[in-house]
């Protein structure tokens, strides 16, 4: 399977065409989508029009963009004009947004071919894609196992070779965890680096769009396209898109790496071993490593499961049957609201709305939501202290390799623990990358996680590239 960089080169040089690349992608989707349930919607017509445009630009000798003719999959919680956007929820079934998310426009301008919308846990709430109202996605590497989540469809699209690239959203690990479980590079960019305009909100202060790719360089190319200030998002960082591709091969010589005890505690031994080998590989490339402890990270999971549901309870209030999506009629408007939401939301979404509503309620706010905000501040301070000592942090992405369907659905808390290593980065608004490093049980991939302060993406990509080479990928 070709990388995105190779596809763009081939399309621009005439060795291939956007139409051919699109056909290859559509063939791969046709071959396995019924089995894996990756795409909720395939936009063959729109992607064909985009491919023709790219080929026309190339024919005229114009710049067709950094992602010229590269098929890409989009998580179905991002708005694309006229294309169904469901968030894998019955409550939005059939809704077609009248506008594009900023990332959609950026991808189109860069020549990417948007082939369709991928499955996810309903409203991005979950870690296995089993919470999709339209059925789960299977892991292309072992269809008896989950691809991770919530961006499981986007991860599976790339892992199955259906598209070279995909984008997902990461609120507590929803890009990095499925990337790890599907053997991909996945990035949670610094909060504000990529515009959230048009991303259907789960937890606004934590959500961030980011790339899936098979290589570190592809991920860097994609993030350069996605990133940069957007006046439509008040929380967008003011700076332009950072230079990332140029730094991918900078290496880690002289860099100080901190292996964080709390980011491997509780992980399977094979995962811990992979992280230790990753540390060794970085040291071999000229970095120095220390072990350190950041006890505040242990509080992350609890704080997250108050803050994220609190914001979600408010963000999801608008699905009331009045203006769009599902409406279940009833005698009066409040009964209609209730009937619509009862029928339209799945169990996990309802659980989080209730959790969040409770955490914000008069008399409980201080004890729950207020306390969680304090923990969040402590975590930001603790990360800042760590980055006073080291340049980047190292740990596991997930406690285990991909797990079987149903393994964690009985008790929500076991599922929540899948994100224990990824959540702190979201709470701190910082950056992290998951890169495949070795394999474990059943030959399934293991992901290791590199964490850095805000806007440290270039540094993280350099280190991830060192691990990629050490893992035997050129």
């Amino acid at each position, binding site marked *: 399977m070709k990388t995105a960089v190779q596809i763009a080169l081939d399309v621009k040089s005439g060795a291939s065409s956007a139409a051919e690349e699109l056909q290859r992608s559509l063939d791969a989707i046709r071959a396995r989508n019924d089995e894996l349930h990756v795409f909720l919607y395939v936009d063959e017509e729109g992607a064909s029009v985009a491919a023709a445009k790219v080929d026309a630009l190339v024919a005229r000798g114009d710049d067709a963009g950094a992602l010229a003719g590269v098929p890409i999959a989009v998580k179905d919680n991002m708005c694309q004009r006229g294309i169904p956007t469901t*968030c894998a929820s019955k409550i939005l079934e059939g809704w077609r947004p009248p506008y594009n998310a900023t990332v959609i426009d950026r991808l189109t301008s860069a020549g990417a071919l948007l082939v369709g919308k991928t499955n996810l846990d309903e409203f991005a709430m979950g870690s296995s894609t089993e919470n999709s109202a339209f059925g789960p996605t299977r892991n292309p590497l072992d269809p008896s196992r989950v691809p991770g989540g919530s961006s499981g469809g986007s991860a599976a699209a790339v892992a199955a070779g259906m598209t070279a690239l995909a984008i997902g959203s990461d609120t507590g690990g929803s890009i990095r965890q499925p990337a790890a479980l599907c053997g991909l590079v996945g990035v949670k960019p610094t909060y504000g680096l990529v515009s959230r305009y048009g991303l259907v909100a789960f937890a606004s202060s934590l959500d961030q769009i980011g790339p899936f790719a098979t290589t570190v360089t592809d991920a860097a190319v994609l993030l350069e396209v996605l990133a940069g200030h957007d006046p439509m998002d008040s929380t967008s960082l003011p700076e332009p898109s950072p230079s990332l591709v140029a730094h991918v091969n900078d290496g880690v010589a002289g860099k100080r790496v901190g292996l964080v005890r709390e980011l491997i505690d509780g992980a399977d031994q094979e995962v811990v071993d992979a992280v230790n080998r990753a540390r060794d590989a970085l040291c071999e490339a000229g970095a120095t490593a220390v072990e350190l402890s950041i006890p505040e990270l242990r509080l992350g999971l609890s704080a997250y499961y108050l803050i994220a549901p609190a914001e979600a309870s408010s963000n999801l209030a608008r699905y009331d049957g009045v203006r769009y999506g599902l409406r279940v009629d009833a005698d009066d*408007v409040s009964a209609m609201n209730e009937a619509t939401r009862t029928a339209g939301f799945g169990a996990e979404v309802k659980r989080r709305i209730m959790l969040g509503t409770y955490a914000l309620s008069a008399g409980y706010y201080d004890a729950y939501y207020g306390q969680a905000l304090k923990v969040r501040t402590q975590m930001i301070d603790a990360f800042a202290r760590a980055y006073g000592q080291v340049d980047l942090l190292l740990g596991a992405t997930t406690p285990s390799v991909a797990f079987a369907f149903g393994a964690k659905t009985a008790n929500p808390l076991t599922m929540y623990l899948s994100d224990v290593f990824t959540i702190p980065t979201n709470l701190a608004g910082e950056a992290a990358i998951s890169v495949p490093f070795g394999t474990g049980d059943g030959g399934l991939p293991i992901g290791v996680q590199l964490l850095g302060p805000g806007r440290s993406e270039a540094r993280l990509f350099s280190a991830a590239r060192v691990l990629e080479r050490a893992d035997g990928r050129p």
Partner: protein
Amino acid sequence: MTLANGWEIVVGLEVHTELRTASKMFCGCANAFGAEPNTNICPVCLGLPGSLPVLNEHAVDLAMAIGMALHCTIAPSTFHRKNYFYPDMPKDFQISQYDLPINVGGYLDLPDDSRVSIERAHLEEDTGKSTHLGGTGRLQGADRSLVDYNRSGVPLVEIVSGPDIRSSSQARAYAQELRGILIATGASDGRMEEGSMRIDANVSVRKADEAFGTRCEIKNLNSLRSLQRAIDYEAQRQVELLEGGGTVRQETRHWDENVGETSTMRVKEDADDYRYFREPDLVDLAPDQSWQDRVRDGLGPMPAERRRALVGRLMNPTTAQLDAVEVVIDLGLEPLVNAAADAGADVTLAISRAANELAADLGDVAKLSPESFIETVLMEQRGELSATQAKTVLGEVLAHGGSPRAIAAAMGFEQLSSSSLGDTVEALIAQYPDEWARYREGDEKLAQFFIGQVMKVTKGQANGKSVIDELQARR
């Protein structure tokens, strides 16, 4: 109205004013009243999934201008979400300022020299507008409800007074003075009938100097008249309740203008828990000194100062003249009055024409040149036009424009020269010798008789004052 048996009214007002920005608070949609329903809407003000708010800086300018005019401190502020379900609120939460509003701690001095404290004046977004058809005419029980989201996301400032108001007339004076300030800052057009300014009144009663009583909040006060009537009704209701041995229940009450009564909307116990929390899609709002200075430098004089200046041009003003001054200030017409006075016109006459003729046709006043106003007033003052003619000419200038002198000529209001007026008076004296004799003996009422006769002969073209001058000259 005053209450019997030593009861005292205690009122605090919450005034919501729509800001006159070109676009809405968090998107680029037009902020305009009266458009076709659901035409000024976009993904943001419809709260579509994925949309995000971006704060309109002009709304901040106007909010600060209001705060400055009310002597508030401009404070670093934040936005919160106020969560509750209502069909005319597209996100099912309202973005508002909560514990950290942009304006805190000011006051407003009223024309009677009383002072009402201002607790805060904060920014928030307006909701859409529901129309309930059939049933009760309210949301619950209506056959159908229609929602127009054109108003959704229009910027509002809510101005919260302290519980300092002690009568319905003081409440009215406060609302009126505040309205003048809102217009003077350019923040609002002050049109209560269009909902640009909406008032909620917190009303309680107590025996003088005792602790505050339990208050009720009255909604739906759409005019100054409603405000005053509702407060009086509500205070009387509470007094009767208390004197009958009952207690006042803290609740929100609805004012019915047709019936003239308040009625229970909801009681405190089932008040919503709004689950306020910081709006994560917006950043903190802390206007720096240069931003504040720019707004402050743009502020013109407030009504109190303008009122003082205009009253200062009058000698021993009568109550009627002061009322006319109030109308002139309220409508912002004093630049015309001052221009006329500066050009040598009689201030009282200029105020009268502004408070009556101009006030009656405000829509066209914007097009009226000061020169036309000045010329009309001077022509009347010189006796070249009668009062009736001057009003007619002014009306014509307002409606169709043009030079007052040319209009007067075209309408046949050509001046009656004093010689021809004198001839007319002479002729009438000859015609009515008995009346003339009685007038000469001091019966002043007969001046009116002669004026009437002159008017009849001249078809209303004479100036009454000039007629008296002619009669006096011959007395």
